[in-house]
């Protein structure tokens, strides 16, 4: 039930329009970080306020929303955000990737491929991929403007020189449409290939850092690498113990205090759907 004390989806219409303008600019310049007048939300900064503002600004009464955190619909922060929109917008929600028109996510891209007409909204803690290499924003802005990404390539090179491979496992930087280096948000690099040529619209919101960026449908997105050290994703030597999937990102679950471990899909909907199909067969 919608709480009548607040505007539809919490934000007032003028604020939503401001966010949508930033979104339009972001779609027009794929991978470019557009500053926007991020508002204080009733959830803490760093807990998805950017994604929430983006979702609130594009949400219509007929939308069906799915919210995941770590790939799961039932983690506390995902539950909290889903309930925030149920309360302030009264919209329908779902746990099924296929049924959602808008998906808000933290740290994963669903295993089930997204389709045209779907929008995925990423919660972004640090939108600036160069921030760990250069903390001054005035500097990183200049570097983006000049496509001066030498610092990033040196970092990757040093990793390879030191460890034999790149030591970044999540939030692995990508080059969008051959122009801007972009932080894909802290998804595991396993998910990076899904950003490339995805039929869905991908929107990224960083509330605390007050930036919005986007990857339009069917956009070329490459993970940074070298010819002789191509990009690689994580692989597991075993399938998910629940559904037997060999193609999904697995969470390691500690089962006892004697070193027992089991590996299960991080994407709960994907795992549940596969188990349902197996049970029906």
């Amino acid at each position: 039930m919608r709480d009548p004390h607040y505007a539809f989806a919490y934000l007032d219409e003028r604020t939503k329009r401001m966010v949508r303008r930033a979104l339009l600019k972001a779609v027009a310049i794929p991978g470019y970080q557009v500053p926007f007048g991020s508002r204080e939300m009733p959830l803490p900064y760093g807990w998805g306020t950017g994604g929430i503002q983006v979702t609130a600004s594009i949400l219509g009464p007929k939308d069906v929303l799915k919210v995941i955190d770590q790939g799961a619909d039932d983690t506390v922060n995902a539950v909290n955000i889903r309930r925030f929109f149920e309360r302030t917008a009264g919209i329908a929600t779902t746990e099924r990737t296929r049924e959602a028109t808008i998906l808000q996510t933290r740290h994963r891209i669903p295993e089930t491929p997204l389709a045209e007409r779907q929008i995925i909204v990423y919660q972004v803690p640090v939108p600036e991929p160069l921030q760990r290499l250069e903390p001054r924003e005035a500097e990183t802005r200049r570097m983006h403007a000049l496509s001066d990404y030498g610092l990033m390539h040196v970092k990757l090179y040093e990793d390879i020189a030191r460890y034999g491979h790149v030591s970044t496992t999540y939030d692995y930087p990508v080059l969008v449409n051959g122009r801007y280096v972009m932080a894909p948000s802290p998804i595991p690099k396993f998910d990076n290939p899904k950003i490339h040529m995805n039929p869905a619209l991908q929107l990224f919101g960083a509330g605390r850092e007050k930036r919005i960026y986007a990857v339009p449908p069917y956009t070329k997105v490459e993970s940074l690498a070298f010819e002789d050290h191509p990009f690689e994703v994580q692989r597991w030597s075993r399938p998910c113990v629940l559904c037997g999937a060999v193609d999904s990102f697995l969470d390691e679950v500690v089962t006892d205090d004697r070193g027992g471990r089991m590996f299960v899909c991080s994407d709960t909907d994907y795992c549940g759907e596969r188990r349902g199909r197996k049970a029906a067969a």
Partner: protein
Amino acid sequence: MYVAVKGGEAAIDQSVRLVAEARRGDASVPELTLQQIKQQLRLSVDRVMTEGSIYDPDLAALAIKQAAGDLVEAIFLLRAFRATLPRLGYTLAVDTASMQLQRRVSAIFKDLPGGQVLGPTYDYTQRLLDFSLAAQMGTVPICESAEAQMGTVPDASPVLELLDQEGLIERQAPAAGDPAPGDLTREPLRFPAERAVRLQNLARGDEGFLLAMGYSTQRGFAHGHPFAGEIRYGKVQVELVPEELGFPVAIGEIELTECQMVNQFAGSKTEPPQFTRGYGLVFGHCERKAMAMALVERALRAEELGEGVESPAQMQEFVLSHSDSLEASGFVQHLKLPHYVDFQAELELVRKMR
């Protein structure tokens, strides 16, 4: 067999109930009223209004009650509420020179027109625990002169004007055309940030953070040589010019604390040696914050005054990006959100690297 942990929803509901219960404490103890908070915890209310950047003692008292006295949480509540309010208009700039003073001290002149007025300050209380307050026997002293004095300090013009008469302190005239200042609540912070934006950021900034940054400038990390030129606390009128009337109408009064720091400046090719200003302004009586703000504000002017930018307090990006308690508290505490996907990725990496 492992069953995926469900029940985040039920857990949240229970947690909400528990926090309400913990807030109330022992039900046999009378519940706090907002009036009590407003009257007897006025300095908490002032801090929450200042950093919550909205002047409303009732809402601030409510936020403090709801947050069980956690002021940073109360500031968060007030800010989130504030973000939903429409912007009805812009008041004229308040005139702190015509403040109805309750306190006014200067550390740079022994005596001056209008005099030194201590007003309500903890400065000379001697910090001895007052056990009569524990016994609730604290009698209310009637300060006979307070009402009489309030607002009647004759000719208490700003101390810095005395320096200005000799041309010894920089003038701070509005820029040509008096452009509207930036508004951080509508536009994101961009660097380099102009002075008005920096001041707004500092006014909303966390008191503890500014205190530490200000303190660092006194210990060799930036050299400000500050003097407390004037600290004044009292009421000012807020005036608005309604479009249909065309003249200012007083819409209320607010309490402010203003701090003008006087700092040395050796001069440059175009400017003779003179004193420079560091400015602090807060709602209510947040004197520590106002003074810290003035120190940091001055340090942040290093670049425009041609001083080296070497210390954290002089670095705009360092100070302004980390001053906001909502941003800092949110991001620090987001670490308790689940991170097991990232951690899994790191786990695999560390195993591979061994």
